[in-house]
């Protein structure tokens, strides 16, 4: 079936199998493999994107459900060589190892800080409880959120 959706500001069309997830459509039909596929069961958050401004696990959304809607993915955050402050904070804090969880986390953290620029540590942990990372033990991810929040309060974005 043919779907039409606005991805990262651009209207795109994709011919998808009716059972396919939004994640599959993004990765395999629309050339946007930044959203990852660690579980495809809604358990890990590696596929996190915005659908009409709300965070969703794109593996749990049918591609067809995104028809005529707006999707924003990790690929929208950087512009050429210019990284988003959240991405910069992840690098500075050492919050990236294998990086497979990173796109989902960067999206989730950006969303959190756009809503609440000063989350306390418990709020951070609660907000990210659905994002699994197998490499870092999360300590440096918490540091990265702190760093990014500081920059947000300083008006970096």
């Amino acid at each position, binding site marked *: 079936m043919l779907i039409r959706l606005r991805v990262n500001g651009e209207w795109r069309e994709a011919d998808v199998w009716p059972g396919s997830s939004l994640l599959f459509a993004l990765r395999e039909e629309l050339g946007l493999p930044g959203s990852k596929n660690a579980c495809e069961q809604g358990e890990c958050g590696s596929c996190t994107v915005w659908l009409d401004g709300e965070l969703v696990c794109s593996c749990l959304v049918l591609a067809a459900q995104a028809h005529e809607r707006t999707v924003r993915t990790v690929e929208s955050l950087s512009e050429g060589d210019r990284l988003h402050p959240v991405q910069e904070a992840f690098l500075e804090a050492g919050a990236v190892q294998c990086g497979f969880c990173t796109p989902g986390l960067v999206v989730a953290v950006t969303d959190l800080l756009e809503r609440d620029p000063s989350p306390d540590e418990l709020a951070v942990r609660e907000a990210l409880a659905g994002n*699994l990372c197998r490499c870092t033990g999360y300590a440096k991810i918490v540091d990265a959120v702190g760093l990014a929040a500081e920059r947000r309060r300083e008006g970096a974005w």
Partner: protein
Amino acid sequence: MSTQLRERVRGVVGESAPRIDGVPKVKGTFAYGSDLWHERMLWGATLRSPHPHARIRRIEVGDAVAAPGVHAVLTADDVPGKKLYGLEFADTPVLAWDRVLYAGQPVAIVAAETPELARRAVARIVVEYEVLPAVTDMERALDPAAPKLHEWGNVLRHVRIEHGDPDAEAEVWVEGYYETAMQDQAPLGPEAGLAIPAEDGGVDLIVSTQWLHVDRQQIAPCLGLPEEKVRLTLAGVGGAFGSREDLHMQIHACLLALYTNRPVKMSYDRRESFLAHVHRHPSRIWMRTGASREGKLVNVRARLLIDGGAFASSSPAVIGNATTFAAGPYEVPNALIEGTAVYTNNPPCGAMRGFGAPQVCFAHEAQMDRLARELGIDPIELRLMNAVHTGSVLPTGQVVRGSAPVREVIELARSASLPPEPEPPPMRHPMTLPGGAGNVGRGEGLRRGVGFAVGYKNIAYSEGFDDFHQARVTLAAGPGGPVVEVHSAGVECGQGFSTVLAQVARTELGVDRVTLHAADTQLDSAGSTSASRQTLMGGGAVQLACAAVRQELFDRARSRVGVTGALSLADGWVLAEGVRAVEIADLLETPITATRTFHHRRTTPLDERGQGDVHVMFAFAAQRAVVEVDVELGLVRVVQVVSAIDAGRAINPQAVEGQSEGGTAQGLGLAVMEELQLRDGVIANASFTDYLIPTILDMPPVRTEIVEVPEPDVPFGAKGVGEHATIVSTAAIVAAIRDATGRELNRAPVRPDDVVGLRLPASSASWPPAPDVPGQEPLPAYHGVARGQSALTQSS
């Protein structure tokens, strides 16, 4: 002064240099195996056995072949070359014929236009099985009456270490029995790769793995191709932790690509990932520890059993490690330690971070706590009193030659300040309670406990194995100044190995711009990214290659510019007697390239008494864990971990912390939640819904203390740091839960039932008998089974 600061080369050894692969990873453009794509690409899928042990009566593929979009359906008959492969021994079928030995074993493969069509075609393959009695218990495997899984029986390797006088009497003995569960590495990136048929009849494979050359060594004979026609390039690796040491989709994708003459991608989903890679061995350990009244260890007697599952994988090396480390990092004059790896019809087990050491650490540290109680000595003092140091003799007779700061790691882990006592529950945020917001108690049952563990393991491969690493360094002029390119087949799994290579190159050549060539099989082997070995081995190879490049630079400086005296490099310049003489860039009208291979010092196999100089060097770790337990609800929260890491030298302190924190998370997982549950040999929880790994809510702050006592005679004095934390954290956390609850808790993971006393401690009737074996070698070796990786030799 300020100019000098600006020009100083950044990101050298000892600095927390930013990751060299960081930017594409945060942008989402880093290409993992599952992200690969090719024109006209087909998708592969695998049919796996549902039975742990069965005879294959018939395989009917007609329906699948006729299904829409299907280009190939292959079974064992279609494997053109050798039908068996394996990491240490070739005992594993590429595709099963005649018999399946575990639930999840590949039986047939399909290539189709889309993943969905491939999955549907798999469902149309009919296999008629005759179910056979399965051996799903590791002690039962030793029973002579049990079904024999391989021609040579069910014993894979039996290691016997006899040291001093194993009958030596001691004034005080403590005895314990311990079990650890089957753990999964659960890297977030699924097993994936893309095979592209080549015009020369060969194949190019881009794949997420841990050792390209040993993959190739196993793949090529099965395809019936010479090695040079099988070319591998590394795809991005989404974590590994040992799970990618064995082949997964490599041979299957190559077979399908060669058969269809189309590129074929295979990418497992989470369920298949759980079925397709090896796991951490479940263990059973019986141990008696004898000491003098004053607390000096006199004798350790231990019996270890690990479940290797259906095929050998790296179990022979794992049991070698577990047995040699079973007495802990302590001086023990007399010992008899016997370890057996057995075959069963359970899923194969192999490498996982720690490689046999976490299981024995769980046992020897519980024994030390028992002994301390029995003797009335402070448990940490008891450890300090017996800790090995440089010059100590291990139970294998091996002398610890290198740095052994065991006392230092113990002191640092114990002296860190304890976290403040929590507020009473009504004042506390419910998220901070054991079990988090799900804790419905009123806090009457909250108890705090503190646990401690010390452990050690080897760096690099052991028992005579020469796991060399080759690297090529090219120094060339670039538009913005000289550029170094580093090429090695070493695999970056996320731990920061490639950044370490860049730091070494910057340090050695005084040039800050470093690029990395993709890891591939154009160069010789780099060895595996495992055994915490790549900092030592890759760092060593790059250092050697840089030294050769530097020599050529100096020759050019002397002959072309006429500089004299002692030369050195710094910040883009050649210095003569410490004074800037000529810019490096001015000497690079042609690039300078050098290829060098680093070997670690030779070790020896275990002799008939289990004695030998078996390990290259050792790394030590100590952790103190603080937990809070709700003893009524059986819920545990880890409050704090102090992790003291013997790094030799921290090449990148931030990355060392990352290994300490991430390794602690995996140890915490095995302590309180992670267990692959088998029902009659079938994994019952092959999903992230049912197999839980620590989330950000489960992780406490981890305070890392890095101890830097350089290892002599190795580059920068650096030891690897990949496994330290994982070795000790399970033991430390479970000890803390024992302290909080007063219960025996001799099995990891600890479950709520254990905490509240609904489940009795694990028990065992008696120590299993030692099997009758010809010697210390793995049994397949005595039966002429082809060796895997140990035959790899340097070709240039």
